[in-house]
């Protein structure tokens, strides 16, 4: 008896979607008139900004929970940590370490809570994470718009609105700006490689890859494959799912920290918005589906998605003399990718039922 692995895998989502993105970006780049060096520089910056956020989505997908739109909760945890530290005016390295420490603590607790909730709604995780994101957003707004100056004592008057209650729209992060971004900066022609930050992103990628290739990772995969079967295979399904979600939320929090320090300032009430949609779309653009995601999908996806993101407004400007069109195109691309991936995924499901002939 001999069975060989089948290779009916051409034309699957894993290959088609990245190629479509490659062609689209190339076409849009042609019309945009932007120089290749400029686009590449921008893509590298965004790779660093968005990379860890996208990577944070991988584990929940592998654990069978679909796209974790609640990564914006992780993002909000970091912003909350930042605001508290700025409020108490802890500057310098101590400040950065405190932000990291606090954002990990906050996101750990948030991940734990979301994990518990998701264990009660098995099979409907994605819609629930979206709603959790909305809910957390309104709590966040409430705390910083109303809480500061009322029940949270204000120490740093600079970040408070002139009426004395609520945090300002934009908070400067100049004390942290460009501290690590320019570390080990290499230049090849016009293209800048901030090697240190690229390595940081790759280090996170490596860590997740490693984790998924341990016994713990096998358990995550098993849970993602089937709850019931994993349970009778002796795995504590609920616990694994909670751990997966905590990991995802903490990674998202760290990702948002990298994102914010790279930009150098942040809009208190809007910086986290779209973090979920854009990261999810980037992951899917790399060829992931809501059932399977690999590290390479995240890395390739960030590149492809952001290339399109950068060139499309300019292409819209040149083609239709209307830059706003490009902006619309951006959100069309983001939501379109997600919708497409969800639909293709269902078709994919049907094909999986093909069974090899009996021995």
């Amino acid at each position: 008896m001999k069975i060989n692995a089948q290779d009916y895998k051409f034309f699957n989502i894993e290959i088609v979607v990245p190629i479509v993105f490659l062609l689209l970006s190339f076409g849009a780049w042609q019309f945009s008139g932007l120089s290749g060096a400029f686009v590449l520089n921008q893509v590298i910056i965004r790779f660093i900004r968005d990379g860890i956020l996208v990577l944070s989505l991988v584990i929940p997908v592998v654990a069978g929970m679909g796209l974790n739109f609640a990564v914006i909760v992780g993002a909000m945890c970091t912003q909350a940590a930042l605001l508290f530290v700025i409020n108490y005016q802890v500057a310098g390295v101590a400040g950065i370490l405190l932000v990291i420490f606090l954002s990990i603590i906050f996101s750990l607790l948030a991940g734990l809570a979301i994990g518990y909730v998701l264990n009660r709604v098995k099979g409907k995780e994605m819609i629930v994470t979206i709603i959790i994101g909305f809910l957390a957003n309104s709590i966040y707004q409430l705390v910083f718009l109303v809480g500061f100056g009322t029940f949270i004592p204000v120490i740093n008057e600079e970040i408070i609105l002139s009426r004395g209650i609520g945090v300002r729209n934009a908070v400067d992060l100049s004390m942290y700006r460009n501290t690590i971004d320019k570390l080990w900066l290499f230049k090849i022609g016009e293209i800048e490689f901030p090697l240190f930050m690229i390595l940081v992103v790759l280090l996170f990628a490596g860590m997740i890859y490693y984790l998924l290739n341990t016994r713990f990772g096998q358990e995550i995969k098993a849970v993602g494959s089937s709850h019931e079967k994993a349970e009778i295979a002796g795995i504590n399904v609920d616990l694994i799912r909670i751990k997966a979600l905590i990991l995802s939320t903490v990674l998202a929090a760290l990702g948002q920290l990298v994102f914010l320090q790279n930009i150098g300032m942040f809009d208190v009430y809007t910086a986290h918005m779209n973090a979920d949609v854009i990261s999810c779309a980037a992951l899917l653009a790399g060829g992931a589906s809501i059932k399977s995601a690999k590290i390479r999908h995240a890395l390739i996806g960030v590149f492809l998605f952001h290339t399109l993101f950068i060139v499309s407004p300019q292409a819209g400007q040149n083609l239709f003399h209307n830059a706003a069109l490009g902006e619309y195109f951006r959100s069309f691309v983001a939501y379109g990718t997600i919708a497409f991936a969800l639909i293709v995924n269902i078709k994919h499901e049907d094909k999986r039922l093909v069974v090899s002939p009996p021995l």
Partner: protein
Amino acid sequence: MENILEIKELSKAYHGVPALIDIDLSVKAGEIHGIVGANGSGKSTLMNILFGNPIVRETGGYQGEILYRGRRIHPKSCGEAIRLGMGMAHQEFALLPDLTIAENIKLGRERTWKFTDRLFGPKYSFIDRKRNAAGAAQVLHQLGLDVDVGIKVINLATNTKQFVELAREIDRRDLQLLLLDEPTAVLSKRDGLKLIEVLMGMSQAGLGIIFISHRLEEVEHICDRVTVLRDGRVVSRYNKGEISISQLARDMIGHRVNKAIAPARDLNTRPVISFRQFSVDMPGEELKGLDLTVFEGEILGLTSLSGHGKLALGYGLMGLYPAAGEVIYKHQRIDQMDARANIRKGIYVLPDDRQGLGILPEHSLADNIIFTGNQVKNLFAKNMVRPFGFLDQKKADLHVGQLVDELEIKCASIKQKVRELSGGNQQKVCMARALTVDPKLLFVAEPTRGIDISAKEKILKLLIDLNRTKQTTIIIASSELDELKRVCDRIAVLVEGKLFKILAPDSPEVEFGLALAGEQGN
């Protein structure tokens, strides 16, 4: 020899219905202990308890004592049972579909790099995939299967999955007690023998094995002791040498007081429907080329072990699962398995999945009874242009009222939601719906499943009455053999999705037991 497992006065009930009553059982090291019993006799419940299946705890736990190596245990999860050194090969397989063969076999005991072992501990140590694949391939080779272990399990045929399921357990070094639930059911004779050989080798090395099988021949061949379960009780126990297949079959089926009985009669042999090479792709219950002719006006019983296809016939005819083959109904070929068209032709099916397919749980009893009749045959519409035919409430209520009295459906009012009725009354509502449609040919699947004894008899009586007064041809698919024997004119036994034998209802019990197990009696 030392007892690995000792069970004392174990009882378990699901929602007040007893599934196991005072079970005593022991397994010695190096013993193969067979357990046989008909469907619903409590075998699966026993396995679930031993292996710590969470469903046991969710439904209120169990009474009694389980001693494992002399120590009292109370397994709460499968993980706990595995850590104790128990292993189980499940009938429906505990394989993760998206993992490869190697990953499935090695799950939880993957070989890892020594370096990262020291660094992070075994749970967070990097997996050495090559060594795992080699190990998995080696175990499968022992079982006589050479296969690329990188294939995902979802792409495997059922018999290959069975090998993988067993390989996972055989590969374990810490295994002391192995529970096997129908390990040979999906294997060919030759593969089954290979497997048995491996099992006997393992038991000689000191492993205790609980072996559940419907293949009585195998049980007789390999078991050191056999325990027969019936209706949740231990009815008999035999040592090696005392085991006889016909005795086991008799003990399994048992004798019961007969109640609703249809007298035997002569049948005409005009066929009303015949199936030629009829196949239905219902997962887990496939029909594979059934040849069966049903005579006009008879009650035909259809029985098989679970998974051998008795339920698929009705579903296939209604187009719920893809079907192939030829169906001749009243000299006409049925080309399309379409529920609506077939109901118009006079064929109706009452499914076994009552909650999911049989009733509209949130609708009233009256709606449920008239639903099909009104939707398909437009029986209760006021005389108006077709799509605007409003429901004739008076006519409908009168009809429903009559049926409720006739069938003695216990309800607060005919507007009560069906969900609130008991199982027996829900089944009566289904019957009332079938009566409203007034079919010429009625399929009923598991009509008495999950309902109490008095309601059972009433349902059976109804079926007999329907047959005798309206000459409706009825096909009952059921695993309740003694009920079929009381009601049916003929009983067809299916094995592996094919017709195995048609028996007269007064054939001896042993013959049924043998036929169900796929053994040609002498």
